[in-house]
């Protein structure tokens, strides 16, 4: 079965406090020069019918009001 990966990230312009918290913590851990950190989610799945992925993302995996998503086919199929 084809395997896909969906990356879900907060929409630009919406405050991402998790991303900010990570960004703020980095210098103390010795990492300089890192900006615009955003924290999102990744979902991986085996899917019989990759054509339905868009619908799955719109309905469940992401909330289109506040999130953008990106679908990646992992086996090179489709």
């Amino acid at each position, binding site marked *: 079965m084809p395997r896909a990966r969906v990356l879900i990230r907060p929409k630009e312009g919406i405050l991402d406090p998790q991303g900010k918290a990570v960004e*703020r*913590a980095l*210098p*103390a851990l010795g990492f300089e020069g890192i900006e615009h950190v955003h924290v999102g989610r990744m979902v991986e799945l085996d899917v019989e019918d990759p054509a339905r992925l868009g619908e799955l993302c719109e309905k469940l995996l992401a909330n289109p009001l506040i999130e953008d998503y990106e679908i990646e086919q992992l086996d090179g199929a489709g």
Partner: protein
Amino acid sequence: MTVETAKHRELGLTDSEFELIVEKLGREPNDVELAMFSLLWSEHCAYKHSRKLLRRLPTEGERVVMGPGENAGAVDIGNGHAIAFKVESHNHPSAVEPFQGAATGVGGILRDVFALGARPIAILDSLRFGELDSVRSRHLLDGAVRGIGHYGNSIGVPNVGGEIYFEAPYEHNCLVNAMCVGIARTEDMVRAAAAGVGNAVVLMGASTGRDGIGGASVLASAELGEGDDAKRPTVQIGDPFEESKVLECCLELLGKGLLVSLQDLGAAGLTSSAGEMASAGGVGIDLDVARVPLREADMEPFEIMVSESQERMLGVVEPAKVAEVIAVCAKWQTGAAEIGVVTDSGRVRVLRDGEVVGDMPVEALVDGCPLYDLSPAEPAGWMYGNRATVSRDATSGETLLDLLGSPSVASKRWAFEQYDSVVGSRTVRRPESADAAVLQVPEAGNAIAVSIDGNGRRVACDPYAGTIEAVLECAQNLACVGAEPLGLTNCLNFGNPEKLAPAWQLDRAVSALAEACEALGVPVVGGNVSLYNEGPEGPIYPTPVVGMVGELPDPARACGSAFLHEGDAIALLGPFEPSLAGAELTKLRGELDTGLPQPDVAAVAAACATVREAVRAGKLSSAHDVSDGGFACALAESAIAAGIGCRVDLQPLRERGCSPDEALFGEGPGGFLLSGSREALESLGATLIGETGGTTIEVAAGDRSFTVDLGAAESAWHSLSERVSEV
């Protein structure tokens, strides 16, 4: 030295322990058996250095329903109901991975309580870390608080109280002790003992993976050294959503009478629960690992037997009821599998698809571990070092602000606001609003109070007196809300018992715990021991943590610790004889040393009774126990919480023979700070010292008199959140 003998040492068994196992089996153990013995014979499971000491503790009482040896203790609360409670540690895992370590600590103690058939109704936690100027300690604090909040909030059990301390000796070995309180109808409570030869053994809950394999023997029976990052894979991952389903499922199964006995899976997983159930019941158990639902492919039998995957329970079920049990589990969307049977063999047998891969006598496995005597020796002098962070030249007003802002004394609001303290609608007194949490118990028409207390630093000064103080502190906290103690649970957190000083500390502390409980008439209904809390720089402070549950007839009368009215009189009650020995100020001045005054338990108990009765009679506006930071801090706390200042003269206290500094900042048991009408306070025999009102805290104490603005005191007391977020 053969490869065989080296293996047992790697698993934490001594050569003589290994030889004893060979003798009891009549042959050498195979891998499955060796793994199981190494876990059940580890310090964490077998209590080999503490079990003899624990026999000193008083465990009987007319209100005791379940005592030590069951999954948790329980006391009768009236009207056919019982309150179950216990405290447990999860120290070593939390030092490695604080979020999951603390979260699974909460998960584990919840399971201990609902394994009795009691619905959990409250969580409390006692945490100790190194000083906050250490990045590591801030990281551990942050992770632990998030983890406790994550687990407790998700499962819907309110966190109603706790304590957090910051002391250098905990830098490498933080302490995370979690306490749970539950309620059950006494006749519905179930014991862990497996019974009924031929009955089925059913595993319920989450599937089994490689979580925590070797956790018990590797982490909890050895000191943490360099490179403990490599131990990360052995930390368990918790899923509170799964636990919420398992909890409801088990309570429904028990309510329907479908289970003969129930046991939770904690340290050493299937090995310990199956072994302990068989031992308690005087029976044998056969388990087939091929029938255990697995999360990871290709797990070996020994891995399946010692896995510490969370959110699993083991039940004994009559064969005719197995199908119904599985159906109830399906309704709650949680796993269920019949994996074994109760036998009369007196042996634990592990099978894989019917083939025997392990076969051990129950008695050898569970009770055959040798128990060791300690070789205690009192250390010569103070062994923990000192670091001054305040000047002796500071004015007393500045000193008060230093103490209020000291992280161990300061308000823990930053932490407890991350916990849901109201779910369940029982919480009458929320965190920091009174000296003990108060929960209404409409089932019995009354209420309970709960407190968890300990002070490792003072126990390090004098393990005997310091431990007695911990018990008295708890009793005083309960008295402030009008509660009478019903039972006690304890977690003994100490260093390496094979070393002279920690052995001496443990020995003294247990004796003191026994004396205090006998004198107060409070039975010990259960507890936990965590040893080997030592890092490269030495042991932690000896830290007995005490959790107490008490009852009160009318929750509406539970006093808060904040002043209530302007113009109320303020008084001191109790045999309070403040001393700077072991005090927070002494720590800040870098002058800690051994020695504490000996507490007068009977006098403190009498004061508790007086305060308790006064609170129940509604005679007081506020009641607050004097502890960290001494009397001045107690005054400030009552004032800050109310937004009402006070004017007080400590001359009456000084007449007991203490210096101004001791009167202001000295510590010790037996001090109650009360407010109310003059007449009421006088009728109790309390010593009037001032009155509430205004916007300043004004204290007359000879040449150390001071006036501090209430706003400044409040800023200092609420400074923890800034200290924690310093990056």
